[in-house]
């Protein structure tokens, strides 16, 4: 069988990358860490200024869309830890999003707890769940993990509907939208955006630090060659389980933010389709990179909605085709293409 040999006899780009006969062009390989863009800090600062200024310049609907980009971005940062950096496929992260969202809805809507408390609770609960599930789940070989998580994602809406006394059943639950403290003088959508932006910035920094740390390098080592990593003293099991826990936490936090932003949760928001969309976004954005999740989030927020205007079937056709094309022809996704473009621009400017 093809997967008998550790599933590692990669073709094409992967094979070259493994044997190392040829130095690949920038952006052709996931996890490529070569610096290609010399003006990193300037660009990041410009992006930060733009992100902070956006709610005061754009109209409320655009602000809402940008907020959703950030919410998806947080969830995708988490999923990317498992898919991109861990090399395992989860089709069930929509379940963690649902848990985070329902924790926010039940705590603030039903129990009347002040809304900021929901965030740490959701983070802790999903982190614990992810850690507990990660150990047995990641022992599953190859496609079994994808199958199990897919089935878990399929079970989420019926379970939410079944326990309607807590969750509001198929009618869903309204969530009180966090309002800005009066001293800020901000509108509701601006306050939400800044709140989500702060969480997203923290999440991004945490993910970056995690990946630059010993644990992050261990995770990469385990992905590239579990046996070699183990010989070097890295425990594949614990590192992967920890990554799964972190990634579940990111999804849970994103779920809570989602509930705040949308102001309503219902089982139909957390179907298998959500988990598929998340995986698609990671793949299209670029697995194993830090910019990938954000690019993927921009993709899921804008492209299906734009395609929807041309017909009900169009979002599925566009997303499905794009996944296939990206996997087959640009496995590093949008982030890889961006790196290639950035490298080209930098080289040209350097010469000129």
């Amino acid at each position: 069988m093809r997967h008998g040999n550790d599933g590692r006899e990669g073709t094409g780009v992967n094979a070259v990358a493994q044997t190392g006969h040829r130095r690949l062009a920038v952006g052709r390989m996931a996890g490529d860490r070569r610096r290609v863009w010399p003006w990193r800090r300037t660009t990041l600062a410009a992006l930060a200024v733009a992100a902070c200024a956006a709610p005061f310049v754009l109209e409320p609907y655009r602000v809402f869309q940008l907020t959703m980009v950030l919410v998806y971005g947080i969830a995708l940062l988490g999923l990317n830890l498992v898919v991109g950096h861990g090399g395992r496929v989860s089709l069930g992260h929509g379940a963690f999003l649902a848990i985070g969202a329902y924790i926010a809805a039940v705590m603030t809507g039903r129990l009347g707890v002040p809304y900021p408390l929901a965030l740490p609770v959701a983070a802790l609960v999903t982190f614990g769940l992810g850690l507990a599930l990660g150990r047995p789940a990641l022992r599953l070989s190859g496609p079994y993990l994808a199958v199990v998580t897919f089935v878990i994602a399929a079970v989420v809406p019926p379970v939410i509907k079944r326990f309607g006394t807590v969750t509001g059943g198929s009618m869903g639950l309204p969530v009180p939208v966090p309002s800005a403290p009066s001293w800020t003088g901000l509108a509701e959508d601006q306050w939400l955006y800044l709140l989500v932006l702060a969480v997203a910035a923290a999440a991004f920094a945490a993910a970056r630090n995690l990946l630059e740390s010993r644990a992050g390098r261990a995770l990469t080592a385990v992905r590239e060659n579990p046996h070699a990593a183990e010989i070097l003293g890295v425990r594949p099991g614990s590192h992967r389980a920890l990554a799964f826990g972190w990634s579940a936490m990111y999804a849970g936090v994103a779920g809570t933010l989602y509930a705040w932003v949308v102001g309503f949760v219902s089982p139909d928001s957390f179907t298998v389709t959500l988990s598929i969309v998340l995986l698609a976004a990671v793949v299209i954005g670029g697995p194993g990179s830090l910019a990938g999740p954000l690019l993927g989030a921009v993709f899921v927020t804008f492209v299906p909605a734009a395609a929807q205007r041309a017909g009900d079937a169009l979002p599925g056709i566009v997303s499905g085709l794009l996944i296939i094309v990206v996997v087959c022809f640009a496995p590093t996704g949008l982030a890889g293409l961006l790196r290639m473009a950035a490298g080209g621009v930098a080289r040209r400017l350097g010469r000129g």
Partner: protein
Amino acid sequence: MAGLLLQIVQGLSLGAVYAGLALALVLVHRFNGIVNFAQGELAMLSAYVAWQLLDAGLPFWAALPITLAVSVVGGMLVERSIIRRVEGDRELAPVAVTVGLMVFVNAAAGLVWSFAVRSFPNPFPAALSFGSAQSGFSALGVLGVVAVMMLLLHVFFRHTGAGLLMRAVAADPVAARLSGVRVGRVLGLGWGMASAVGAIAGILVAPLLFLEPNMMGGVLVYAFAAAVVGGFRDPVAAVVAGLGLGVAETLAGTYVAFVGADLKVIVPLLVIVVVLMLRRGPAGTAGQR
């Protein structure tokens, strides 16, 4: 008592459909080592092809072989054009590609045939319609078709030259290639056969569930569970598990108050979890890697 019997018969006919799709999943996995998330949607597409032919006025038993031929060719084309690029790749690429295919085929069917629900004619005569006998009759028909399909596959793999070549490739692609087997063609044929088997499942389930682009979403979950019982390798175990799942789901939905109609879908999840926990060694766990 008659109620229970009716439930069991209905469960068996649903189970036969799960078994058919699980069989297709096992076929693909044995040849490519890929779990095909798009298997259900390809089956749905075949059911639409059959519906189109029936709508054009063809009799059912003429439309069936045409549909199967279309499915075989379609499956081979998909394998050749898309799947070939990710075969032998690591975990992410095959899963992502088949998931992308699932999304695409679902939407494409919606584009061509709209998302409206259509009724699909039941191929089995409902002449004996006293009480529960009608559903019993078509359930027997569904079971019979799946049994015949398994028998044909068995004869093909055990007693024909082409079947021998295909088994050689499934056992060891490299050795088969060295002894002159055109491995690529065999892999394509494996996909084609899996699509045909899936097509039969799709055509059988269409009269039970009504024809619509999303009809296979639920069926796929059960087929996954059945295939997991067979370790994605054992066709007989997968078929038996499919039948059992159909019965268990129907009975649990009716007689276990906690489960009810809503929570039936928890049955396959439980089956998967229990099977993976009980199984030690090769198929499910990382011990193999």
